[in-house]
């Protein structure tokens, strides 16, 4: 995507960014699920997708495609791209309308953008979809650090995420 941005600008980046999670990247995630479902130690009735950033956007699309997933947890979904790509915003908003699994959305206040969380929360509120928006305080000294809360400050979200999973996986 960075190559697309350098060569043809933001419009091309937006196009590539929307195309990849709908095709090859989604195919890879579906292959991952198929692999897991064949394992005897996997409880196929209690499967979860967790995604970060671009992977958060992809997690939303995967959950739309795979209603067998029981929960979705997304950290900083599309945090860097939300404000730059109207196409991505529209696609993700439409996707959450189709998701049946409970969705947990996580941002740090100093993420690149917290708009994805607020927008998706608003859509799911209107549709009475089960979901939880967690907006943690500022982490670190940069948007990069806030965006990478998932790895840089596990203690911030750990208890909340496991509580969310505990509640939704026992249903």
């Amino acid at each position, binding site marked *: *995507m960075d190559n697309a941005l350098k060569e043809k600008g933001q419009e091309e980046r937006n196009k590539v960014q929307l195309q990849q999670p709908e095709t090859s990247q989604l195919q890879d*995630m579906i292959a*991952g699920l198929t692999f897991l479902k064949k394992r005897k130690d*996997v409880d196929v009735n209690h*499967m*979860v*997708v967790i995604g970060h950033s671009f992977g958060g956007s992809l997690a939303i699309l995967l959950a739309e495609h795979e209603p067998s997933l029981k929960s979705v947890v997304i950290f900083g979904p599309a945090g860097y791209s939300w404000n730059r790509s109207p196409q991505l915003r529209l696609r993700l908003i439409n996707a959450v309308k189709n998701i049946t699994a409970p969705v947990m959305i996580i941002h740090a206040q100093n993420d690149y953008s917290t708009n994805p969380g607020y927008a998706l929360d608003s859509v799911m509120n209107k549709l009475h979809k089960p979901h939880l928006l967690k907006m943690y305080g500022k982490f670190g000294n940069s948007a990069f650090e806030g965006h*990478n809360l*998932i790895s840089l400050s596990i203690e911030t979200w750990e208890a909340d995420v496991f509580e969310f999973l505990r509640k939704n996986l026992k249903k």
Partner: protein
Amino acid sequence: MIKEIALALILAFCSVQQTNAQDFGGPDTVSVHSGQLTLKGLLWRPTAAGSFPTVIFSHGSYTVNDSIITPEQQISSLGPVFARKGYIYLALFRRALAFQKAKEKMAQALWIMH
């Protein structure tokens, strides 16, 4: 007396941690077929017998400016967190996103996307 109380509190805390935590193994390197491609993944799992709730992790796209956190750091830090709580955790390295630095780092770690 204060020392004894402190020791008792520490032992009680450790006991709670052990109760909630599970023994786990991994990461195992696994191969996942996606069309004509074979992707690599890292999998952590509880060591107890039985079936377990399972997480598939969808990593981000790592830009050439990512110097603080790398794919392997991110995934290596998260896998044990979930396995310890009784989850199987698969971090699948999807096909290249054209981010050369991430690919190089993955290659260095032998997590090569074929």
